[in-house]
Each structure stands twice: as C-alpha cells, then as structure tokens.
C-alpha cells in the first residue's frame, strides 16, 4: 500500500496549480461562463500541450496510458480552479469508452484527434423516463442496408454544444428496461435529423437536450451492442464518476481553506468569529469530512479500471454516494459560516457550493449510487 502521489503526479499537480494561478483566476473564469462557448479554447489547447488530453488514453493511439489516479490528480485541480473545459466528457467519459471498444479503426480515427485537442465528444445516453439508469431507454435504432436510423430524445447531454461527435445509446430491440437490447453509436454533430436545444448549466458549463429524428449513421458507427454496449457505458460512466469524486475532493479542500480563512479574519463582537466554539467544531467536522472524502476519492480512483464489475460498482457508487452527502454538508456549511457573504455571486465560495451540488446531480446522484451500493450488498449476507 502507498498513499503518495508519484513524482510525476506531483509535478503534474504543480503544473496545473501554476496554470490556474496564471491563466484561470476567478474573474477570468466568470467571464468564460458568460461567453458563447462557456469555456476557453486557449485553455483547451494548453490542456493538449500539457498532455492532459493524452493522459488516460492508450499509448497505441498517442495517449500516455495513465490510470485513474493520474486522472484524480487532474480532476482535483479542475475542482479547485472550477475549470469549465469539457475534459470529463471528451477525455475521461467518451475517450474511455472509445478506448475500451473493439474497433481499431474508430480508435485510430478519434483518439489521436482527442489527444491533439482537435476533437470533442459528448455522451448522449440518459433519457428523462430512466432518470440515471443507463439501460432504461426508449430511443430506437432501426437497421437498413446502409446502416442504422436512430430516433429518440436525450436529456441534459453535458458539453453537447461544443461536441463534434456524440456517443448515442439506442435500442435495436427490447423494451425500455431491457438490459441487453441496446447499442452504442457514434453520431457526427452535423447529421441530418439531429437537433440540439443548448443551454447553460447551474455550475457555468454548457449542455443540451438532443432530438434524433430518423438520424442515419453507417454500420461502422456501431461502437458496441448488446451486453458489450452496456458494459462499455458502465465502464465509462464509472470512470467518469470516479473523476467527479476527485473533482469534489478538490473543491472541498479549497472550500475548507476559504472557510477557515474567513473564520480567522471576519470579526464580530470585537473578535474573529473563529473563536466561537460552535463554529470551531463545525469547522472540525468539515475537516474530518474532507479527509473522509479524500479517502473515498482514492478508493474510486484506484478502482476506476477495475475489471471486476461488482468491485468497481461498489467502490465507485459507494464513493459517489458518500461524497454526495459529505460534500453537501461541507458546501452548505461553508456558505453558512460565510453568512451573507456566502450568498453572493462575487465570491468564489458560492460557485464552489453550486458546483458541488451539480456534481452530485451528475452521472447518478446520492440516492442512485446509494441504492446501487446497497443493492449490490444485498446478496452479501449469504457470505457473512
């Protein structure tokens, strides 16, 4: 066992810290949230230069073959800096799915372009009726001689507005809840029948609802089908959920720093409010929560590529559920301890709080992952 980052990881962490301090301060970030694209193309180019885009992708396709812990290093800083670029969607989520799929051609076509920062991809998997269940979908895929025709609606596709391609899940067969009867397709942005309704998100990013009306894709666009498709989706979403855990851990430590600083400087009744024991003990609880959150993020990161699906599910759903609750506590208390100052748009505290909230609502919320963890433990008692 070893709980330290490697020299390389520490160097990467330092690089990102400097990048954020230099090019991504709070004011710059706020300007970006109000811009058209909602993120910085320059920053994205720098991600490519720094090798962030290559980091977790396979070496055969220009990647660096990094692991979940490498991604954790990046995502912690993404959290601290509240970075807006579509790293999670393009690199971790879709990049991970494509890297795991069977087609060398698709990988050759897409991964080097991602590494080079020339290509962005978004996952269009969730549908309103299925909530966070990847296998519950109504979108249909009808095969014809040229390939497939896709029809359906997808909710809240993260980073859709800037995506060049979408990974779309749909059903060649089976009812909405059938686990096996689905497939995963690569759909280029500019395909006839594909409509976007774009909008900003509560944490400053961009997303869209998608409508597919008889969208045609060729046979080669199938990334996976049947059980394999669901497995690809789950791997990708689990790895991305682990990354969100790391992002949350980064935010929580930054938020605790800010709150502790405020307790030491804000004066009421002639003294710093940090002398009041009720607030001190709240801060101690937040410190303990930070440590526990970090431990859970480590568990998630080290299981991100676990081939044992049950172990991966328990580790990552467990971490996402735990962090969903613990980070909500830290976020709410950080605002509370800042008093009215925690409520204003001018301070980063409220933005950290909002981002933590939205992380919980992304890729399965606390309740979804708690149920997934708890139900996975259901059979356990036989062993116990």
């Amino acid at each position: 066992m070893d709980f330290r980052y490697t020299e390389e990881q520490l160097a990467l962490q330092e690089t990102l810290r400097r990048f954020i301090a230099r090019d991504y301060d709070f004011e710059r970030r706020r300007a970006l949230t109000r811009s058209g694209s909602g993120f910085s193309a320059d920053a994205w180019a720098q991600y490519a230069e720094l090798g962030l885009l290559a980091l977790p992708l396979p070496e055969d396709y220009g990647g660096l073959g990094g692991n979940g812990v490498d991604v954790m290093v990046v995502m912690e800083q993404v959290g601290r800096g509240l970075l807006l670029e579509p790293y999670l969607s393009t690199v971790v989520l879709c990049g991970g799915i494509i890297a795991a799929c069977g087609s060398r051609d698709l990988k050759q076509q897409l991964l080097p372009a991602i590494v080079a920062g020339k290509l962005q991809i978004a996952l269009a998997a969730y549908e309103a009726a299925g909530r966070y269940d990847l296998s519950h979908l109504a979108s249909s895929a009808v095969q014809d001689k040229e390939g497939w025709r896709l029809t359906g609606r997808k909710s809240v596709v993260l980073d859709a507005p800037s995506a060049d391609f979408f990974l779309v899940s749909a059903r060649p067969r089976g009812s909405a809840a059938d686990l096996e009867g689905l497939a995963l397709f690569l759909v280029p942005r500019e395909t006839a029948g594909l409509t976007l309704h774009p909008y900003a998100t509560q944490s400053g990013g961009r997303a869209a609802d998608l409508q597919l009306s008889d969208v045609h894709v060729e046979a080669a666009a199938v990334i996976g089908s049947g059980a394999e498709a669901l497995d690809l989706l789950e791997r990708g979403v689990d790895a991305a959920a682990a990354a969100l855990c790391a992002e949350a851990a980064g935010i929580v430590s930054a938020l605790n720093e800010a709150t502790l600083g405020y307790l030491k400087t804000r004066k009421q009744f002639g003294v710093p409010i940090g002398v009041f024991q009720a607030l001190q003990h709240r801060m101690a609880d937040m410190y303990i929560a930070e440590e526990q959150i970090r431990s859970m993020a480590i568990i998630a990161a080290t299981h991100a590529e676990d081939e044992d699906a049950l172990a991966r599910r328990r580790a990552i759903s467990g971490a996402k559920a735990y962090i969903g609750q613990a980070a909500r506590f830290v976020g709410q208390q950080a605002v509370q301890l800042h008093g009215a100052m925690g409520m204003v748009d001018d301070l980063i505290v409220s933005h950290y709080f909002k981002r933590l909230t939205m992380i919980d609502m992304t890729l399965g919320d606390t309740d979804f992952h708690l149920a997934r963890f708890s139900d996975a433990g259901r059979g356990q008692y036989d062993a116990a």
Partner: protein
Amino acid sequence: MDLSYTAEEQAFRAEVRAFLEAEVPEETRAKLRLGRRLCKDDMVRWQKTLHRRGWGAGMWPKRFGGGGWSVVQQYIFEEESAAASAPPQIPFGLRMVAPVIMTFGNAAQQQRFLPRIIAGEDWWCQGYSEPGSGSDLASLRMSALRQGDHYLVNGQKTWNTLGQYADWIFCLVRTSNEGRPQQGISFLLIDMKTPGVSVRPIITLDGEHEINDIFFESVPVPVANLVGEENQGWTYAKFLLNYERTNNAGVGHCKRALTQLKMIATAQSINGRPLMEDARFRDRIAQVELELMALEITNLRVLSAFAREDRPPGPEVSALKVKGSEIVQQLAELKMRALGHDALPYLREALEPDWVPNPLLATHYPGWASSLSGQYFNLRKATIYAGSTEIQKNVICKMILGL
C-alpha cells in the same frame, strides 16, 4: 387540548378560500406555480385587493384598521393563501415597522404611516445590517447627527431586501457613542427619495437581484421621523426581531412547498415509474413532512400562548425560526433533487413571466423545473438572515435555558 377548528374558524376558512379563489389574479397565480419572477406590481396590487376586503392587515389590532385576528385565524389565512398561490404580503411594513410604530411611535406617526402601509401605498424596507455589523448588530456605525429639527445621516446599510422597490426605509442609526454600543442606537424612518440615498444591487448566487447595498450621504431626516426616544432604538430593534421571527416558521408556505414536492416527485420518473413510488425518496419526503407536522403544532402552541398571556413574542420564537428555516431548506433541496438531471439546466429566461419552453425541451421538461435549483441555492439564506441559526441558539441558551 383540542386540535380541531371551531365552527367559526371553519366558516372563516371557507370565506378566505372563496375570496382567494375569486380575487387572486390568474396571471400571478401562474407565475407562482411556475416559479416565475413576481414584479413589484403583483405584490402591491394584491395588498390593495386585500385592503379593499378589509384584510390588509389581519393580524393588526382593530384600532389601527387591522382585522384583530386570532392566532388561529391568522394561521388559516396564511395556509389558504399559500395553498391558493396568492402572492406573499411583504412583511417589512406590515409585520416589522408597523408593530414598532404602534407600540413606540407617536400618534402623528401612527396616523401618517400605518394607513399607507395597510393600503399598499408605501413599500417599506429594512436598514439593519452594515458591512461590519451582521450578527453583531449593536456595533453598527451609520451615524445620525442632530442638527436642529433634522438628523444628518451618513453611512451604509447592506443585505437590504427589495430596497429597489422601496418608498421608505426604517434604519437603526448611531446617535451617540456614549456607554455600551447598544445605548447609542436610534430607530429612524427615512424617505428613500431623499437626496443622498442611493441603492446598489447585490447579485446573489442564483443570479438574481433581491438584495442591495444602500448608501446614505449627508441625508437630512426630520426629527419627526425618530421613533420613540433617541438612543432607545435597540429596545425597539429587539422587539421587532421577535415579531419578524414569529413569521419565519412559515408553516403555510412549507405546506404548499410540500405539496409541490409531491407533485414533482409524481411527475418525475425513475425507471419509468413515478419517483413518488420509490420508497427511498418517499421516505425522505416523509421525514420532512414529520418535522413540519410537529412544527405546525409547536408554532400554534407558542403563538397562542403569547396571545393568551397578551404579551409580545418572546425568545421562544427562536426555536420556530430555527426549525422553520431548516424545513424550508430541506423542502427546497428535495424539490431540486427530485429533478435528477433536470436540476442542471440554468435557464434564466425561464423565470420571465412570458417564457415558453422550447418544444424539444417542453416534451419532458416542465416549466416549474427551471426555478428549483435557483430556489435551493437562494434559500440557503433562510438559516442566515433574520438572525442566523447560531444567533437563535445563543438566544435560546441565554433567554430560555439560562446558560
């Protein structure tokens, strides 16, 4: 011990319900149901409507033109108003400055200000907090310098709610630096149109403009606008805070929010079935519902004791404020969480009265969804303003527990 309503109370409820049914403008009702922004006019018009009916200030004593309602009547009115999606009555005039003027103001002030408050002619706002003085209110520094028949007022107030609409502001000002900080404070009524008064918006985390900084540069205020005695303002301020807190429990609005929550949990799906059928989520709702059931009775017990003993609200209201604000926040949180992914979109335009959802979005995205995340963020204020939860617990310890 009897929790049932008397025949009179039931008749009153029927009367209120019929009135609301008939009088709440459909447009306003729709705004509230869909979580759209209310404009000043929505609220002022409603106050005037209530006034015409003689219900402009049900809780006021009859001698000031109020309804002289009992605690239970008042509660019935609030519950029905919330259920009918009637606009809230803005509290700053009716519930905050008015009781102070009734109790400590002179006849001239009572005749001048109270009728205009009840008639919805004057919009009041509150000038309490200052940048350095929040929980530690007594340390406030805004100065009022007596010059003949005027005070010259200089300083800044902050965290002022809806001051951008206000005709008048009641302020705590420092008229003396002698003795303990509490001793040099006076309670002053200031016309917002006076030269030297300026309002600067503060944008909150939900992107909305609800609160303000208010600056006072050499603002002349007639001595006639001093309430009670000079340097006695702290007494009036505490009196006012307790009145304010009697309303913070907001049981009526919480009940309405609970109903909305159940509607949302019914409309949203999990694995193709209503979320409300999911025992896990339903249990979360049940837990808040139980807190609210208890608070409804605690609230009525406390308020009816004040009425029975004919005394102004005491420190017991701090418990109501603590619980009420927690419940408000839990309900807002569950409403957001019920949305699942749909909590993520930030559609500012969707708060506009006339917003029509994009048909693609509309297919699954209900109009009311767009406001829920913002409401959750915004309502974090509930445990901060009007005396933070921490301050309320200090009050309970000192005034009730003797710690």
